[in-house]
């Protein structure tokens, strides 16, 4: 029984202290048996506090440590390391979660939250009093990572992981790689096109033998856990045999083109955000990877006309499944652009109202003159924050990239075409960092900026066949302004991917913004609460390309660090048999999914024995024992019952 315990109650800035009376908690806990030191701290995770705890442990020879702060999912290992640095066994440390499960969960009831915090800490004290000094076991881990999404974040992470010696499977649910980046034209600040950047990166990826790419592929199911995930991949049919497609074969290319030309099916081209149409056989741009075109299985009528021209086409291909084993999964699934509902600023009702992604494709496609629906564009109105910073809608967040992207597009059209007037109806321009240079350039080129707010937004209407945008400019004391324009561009933000199945299969938590949720925005920005599942890029929040790539590299490093030793340290939560009580009945061996219990002989008596290397610490054997002869380290009857007692005392 520990008798010299230190307890530290964290304010977490205001996250805990706003709802929990931490001083009262400290006073109550100080009265508990075995507590030698009780302190409150502004941030328990701060370096200075960690040092103070280390010094306290050493100076007072503490034999147990409780830190009441955030969820153990965030800082368990931080504080275990603190204990270890002070010479205390890390398993003599217990974390009491008084943030996620107290202050935040009961922010509506500070008195109730304070009472609960006291009970939760008493429970942690009960556990630490009976805690043992332990050594963690290790399991082998497969140094293989599955990356989901072959956009810029996924490809960049794949290259980085491969260079660090990790084998990579990278899957893309589309038939071509590149993701959203390949849809963008000139990128700030290098002015390379997205197509060029992706081509350059993919050329690098192809040089690495320890990367395998599957296109048209998604996760069908998973089993296992960190270090040893078993993943079933579903590969949808491309309907064109990839191995038949040769590079630099003019004759073959001619046949393929004939097949495309004969295809009678036309569907909206989602690569161009539906402003153009494409055939069921398609390829988005010439240098796109893989080189082989694909047939849109949903749109194709299987008329067979194309097969007459090209022997590579195989309309009878079926979906395939393959099983892979990986140690970790890195999600880089990106985002979907916000799609305004019909009528939002006239979208879907007024012909010349389009979204920013559509506008960017239009710029890419229109070489000499900017023409939309057969009309030459001489004036453009940009309406900002559509689908972002919504007062009434779900998307409360700022999408971060759209101010810069709209202004960059505006400069592009000034440079590419002649004599276009641009009006920017914004809610405060957010071109942070170097992107501010674009704002300056745009202003110098004569673009007109008018600021509105959420209560007095711009409106789009048609009067006498002309499209008018009206607004009250708050920078000129609310003066009414109206502009007749040829095109209205809704500067739309980012939304989470409509495809939810991948996240659901892996059970990745989603946040209030509906993007994937990292453990901590600052301290664990690419980790999730699912061990071995990492997130990166715009699947976790709106990020621009630069930021997405930084996160991808971070996630790649974390995944490699986890797996590159070939083994992972696990919790030392092992089953223990009380051989004196055990009267071999075989129930525990039947319950154990890992064959970790066998029959052995103890002085002529048959008893159960745990094979430590196989035991995963699930505890399934505990309740099936008719004589209660099995306990789990860290979850003994004495520990569990003392916690139960303490939390209600």
């Amino acid at each position, binding site marked *: 029984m520990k008798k010299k315990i230190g307890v530290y109650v964290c304010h977490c800035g205001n996250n805990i202290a706003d709802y929990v009376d931490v001083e009262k908690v400290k006073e109550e806990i100080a009265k508990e048996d075995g507590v030698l030191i009780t302190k409150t701290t502004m941030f328990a995770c701060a370096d200075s506090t960690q040092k103070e705890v280390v010094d306290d442990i050493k100076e007072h020879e503490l034999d147990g440590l409780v830190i009441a702060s955030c*969820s153990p*999912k965030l800082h368990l290992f931080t504080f275990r390391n603190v204990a270890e640095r002070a010479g205390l066994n890390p398993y003599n440390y217990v974390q009491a*979660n008084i*943030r*996620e*499960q*107290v*202050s*935040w*969960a*009961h*922010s*509506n*009831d500070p008195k*109730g*939250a304070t*009472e*609960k915090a006291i*009970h*939760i800490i008493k*429970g942690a004290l009960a556990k630490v009093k009976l805690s043992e000094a332990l050594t963690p076991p290790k399991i082998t881990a497969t140094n293989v990572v599955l990356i989901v999404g072959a956009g810029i974040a996924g490809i960049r992470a794949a290259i980085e992981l491969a260079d660090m010696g990790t084998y990579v499977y990278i899957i893309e649910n589309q038939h071509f790689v590149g993701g959203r980046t390949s849809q963008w034209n000139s990128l700030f600040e290098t002015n390379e096109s997205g197509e060029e950047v992706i081509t350059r990166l993919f050329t690098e990826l192809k040089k690495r033998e320890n990367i395998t790419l599957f296109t048209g592929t998604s996760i069908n199911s998973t089993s*296992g*856990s960190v270090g040893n995930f078993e993943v079933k991949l579903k590969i949808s049919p491309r309907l064109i045999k990839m191995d038949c497609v040769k590079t630099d074969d003019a004759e073959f290319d001619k046949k393929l083109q004939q097949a495309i030309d004969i295809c009678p099916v036309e569907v909206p081209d989602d690569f161009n955000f539906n402003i153009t149409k494409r055939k069921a056989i398609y390829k988005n741009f010439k240098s796109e990877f893989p080189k082989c075109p694909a047939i849109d299985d949903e749109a194709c009528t299987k008329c067979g006309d194309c097969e007459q021209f090209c022997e590579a086409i195989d309309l009878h291909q079926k979906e395939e499944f393959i099983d892979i084993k990986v140690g970790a999964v890195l999600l880089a699934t990106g985002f979907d652009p916000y799609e305004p509902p019909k009528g939002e600023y006239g979208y879907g009702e007024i012909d010349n109202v389009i979204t920013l992604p559509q506008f960017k494709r239009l710029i890419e496609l229109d070489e000499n003159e900017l023409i939309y629906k057969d009309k030459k564009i001489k004036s453009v109105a940009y309406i900002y924050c559509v689908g972002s910073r919504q007062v009434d809608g779900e998307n409360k967040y700022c999408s971060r990239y759209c101010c810069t992207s709209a202004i960059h597009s505006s400069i592009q059209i000034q440079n590419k075409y002649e004599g276009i007037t641009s009006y920017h109806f914004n809610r405060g321009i957010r071109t942070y960092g170097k992107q501010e240079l674009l704002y300056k350039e745009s202003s110098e080129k004569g673009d007109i900026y008018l600021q509105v707010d959420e209560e007095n937004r711009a409106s789009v209407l048609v009067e006498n066949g002309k499209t008018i945008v009206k607004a009250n400019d708050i920078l000129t004391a609310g003066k009414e302004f109206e502009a007749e324009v040829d095109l209205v561009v809704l500067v739309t933000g980012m939304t989470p991917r409509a495809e939810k199945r991948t996240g659901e299969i892996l*059970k*990745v*938590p*989603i*946040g*209030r913004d509906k993007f994937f*949720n990292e453990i901590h925005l600052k301290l664990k920005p690419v980790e999730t*609460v*699912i*061990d071995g599942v990492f997130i990166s890029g715009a699947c976790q929040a709106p990020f621009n390309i630069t930021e997405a790539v930084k996160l991808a590299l971070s996630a790649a490093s974390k995944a490699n660090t986890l797996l590159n030793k070939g083994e992972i340290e696990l*919790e030392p*939560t092992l089953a223990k048999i009380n051989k004196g009580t055990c009267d071999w009945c075989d129930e525990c061996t039947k*319950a154990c*999914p890992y064959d970790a219990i066998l029959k052995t002989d103890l002085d002529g008596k048959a008893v159960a024995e745990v094979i430590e290397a196989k035991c*995963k*610490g*699930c*505890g*399934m054997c*505990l*309740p*099936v024992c008719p004589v*209660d002869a099995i306990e*789990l380290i860290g*979850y003994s*009857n004495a520990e*569990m*019952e003392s*916690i*139960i*007692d303490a*939390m*209600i005392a």
Partner: protein
Amino acid sequence: MDTEKKAKILVFSTDKISDPAIDLAGLMKIHYSPTVYTITVPCSSSIKSRWIMHAFEKGYDGVFIAADGTDCPYGESCSELTGIIVGNTHELMKAKKIDPARLKMAAVCSVCAESFVKHMDSFTKYLSKTENTN
């Protein structure tokens, strides 16, 4: 008319699956009763009936097992084994004349924050009627 009281609920949650959901409920500031106390176990099929019975003896009004369900990282048998634990404990409760409805189990996945809070609200409502716990 029922007399209302603050029901004390002990929740057995699991480290990998239901604990993240309960954390997420906090993150999303979805409120539930502050007399809900959570104790973490590796897997819901590791919970002993004696711990549950101990909780009732000590004065908890209800015990809720936030089970791994089919998401259990340890194996497919988790749901079945947890169900057996609940069944066995119900028998022990009946023998001690404790209303079996005071022990509930539901699968709570790692993102089931709202579902967890709904369970807590309805369980709290049931247990807060003193006739159900006396």
